């Protein structure tokens, strides 16, 4: 059984269709890059999979639980990293992790916080306020927050936005490490080079439907960009 499954998923805002009868499956342990131009429905799909939005029609299952009926069970299995860091900048790094740990009903002890901060290279910054962190550090802490409850599925929505080269390289390492640990990853991005380098499969959305869905083995960034242009009819990054 796939870990993520959508059947004839449709989402309309007022009368405007954003997703049209979308069928998608993601197997356990897969790393899928979700591509598409702005307005193709990537973020809407991500929000639906997280339970932040309700479908107009169709079925969404994550880990065998159905949305929106079993939303709490689904949310417990998902960790989300977005272009917004989803952190409180008036709290320290450790306080942020403690707070989110409590929301996920974890035994939030010093060892868990230390371990989580160490995993993202912030072991010495636990007592520092998040507002003093660089964008890259905030994004790394955001990953620690998303991994805190050891979710089966990690959803990344444009995680590279605003990161410099060093920050992006650090994020690459964390994504690879999370994938190696067995997390299933779904990442929406405009960065085709990174998608080709990191993911195992590319799904290109166009006009709310899947325009292309194929493995990325042996495909480099340039070849993926060609496919992207053909499928979406516009240049990459648009």
């Amino acid at each position, binding site marked *: 059984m796939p870990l993520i499954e959508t059947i004839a998923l449709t989402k309309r805002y007022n009368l405007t269709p954003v997703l049209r009868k979308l069928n998608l499956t993601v197997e356990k342990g897969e790393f899928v890059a979700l591509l598409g131009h702005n307005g193709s429905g990537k973020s809407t799909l991500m929000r639906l999979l997280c339970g932040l939005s309700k479908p107009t029609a169709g079925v969404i299952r994550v880990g065998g639980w159905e949305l929106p009926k079993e939303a709490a069970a689904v949310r417990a299995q998902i960790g989300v990293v977005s272009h917004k860091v*989803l952190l409180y900048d008036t709290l320290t790094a450790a306080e942020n992790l403690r707070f989110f740990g409590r*929301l996920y*009903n974890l035994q939030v002890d010093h060892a868990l916080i230390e371990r989580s901060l160490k995993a993202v290279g912030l072991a010495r910054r636990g007592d520092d306020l998040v507002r003093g962190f660089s964008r890259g550090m905030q994004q790394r802490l955001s990953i620690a927050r998303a991994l805190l409850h050891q979710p089966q599925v990690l959803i990344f929505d444009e995680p590279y936005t605003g990161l410099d080269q060093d920050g992006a390289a650090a994020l690459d390492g964390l994504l690879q490490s999370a994938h190696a640990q067995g997390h299933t990853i779904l990442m929406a991005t405009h960065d085709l080079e990174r998608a080709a380098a990191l993911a195992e499969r590319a799904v290109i959305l166009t006009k709310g439907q899947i325009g292309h869905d194929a493995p990325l083995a042996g495909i480099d960034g340039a070849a993926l960009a060609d496919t992207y242009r053909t499928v979406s009819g516009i240049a990459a990054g648009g």
Partner: protein
Amino acid sequence: MKAAPFLTAVGAILRKDIQAELRGRELVGAMGVFALLAILIFSFALELDREARSEVISGVLWVTVIFASILGLNRSLAMERDQGNLDALLLAPISRSAVFVGKLIGNFLFTFTIAAVLLPVMTVLYGFSLFAPPLLLTLVLGVAGFTTVGTLLATMTVQTRAREALLPIVMMPIALPILLAAVRASSAIMNDAPPETWQAWMQILAALDAIFITMCFLLFEYVVEE
């Protein structure tokens, strides 16, 4: 993994808000300065005799508390909107009502703190003793009702561009019955009216609180839903 129990989630959100406030003093600081300036301006503007002052003092207290509260509510919910934190709360496997109750208790505590500080200051400025237990109870009930409506509406308006202007516009008509009952009860207490007068208004206030708390508790899930 089990979902966090309701009270654990409420406690975590409340604790986070207090922790952030103790560090930044963004809410209570702004609300406090506004409230003190407002009653100072009122005290100079209303150069009235003792009898006339006794008629308006309750209105001054509540207008000041309410506008300070609107200031705080906007900031409190803006803190959740910035960096997408409201989404982070909604992504957690907790009841959405727990998010509402956690935010509500925090907003109540911050607003009540300001209201409680105003009492001695107004006692000095207006020459009236405002230290009466029934007045404190009226403040508790009035602030609870107002922050309940405000927390729900601020969650909606904070998503809009004109949030600072929009909140008082949508909130005042809905919270008007609470304001009316609170002003009437306070005025009766301050003017040593017979207890049955202010007790009747306080009963109305308590009933309004029960209605608004129940309604807002039930509606919050729909307000944050897409």
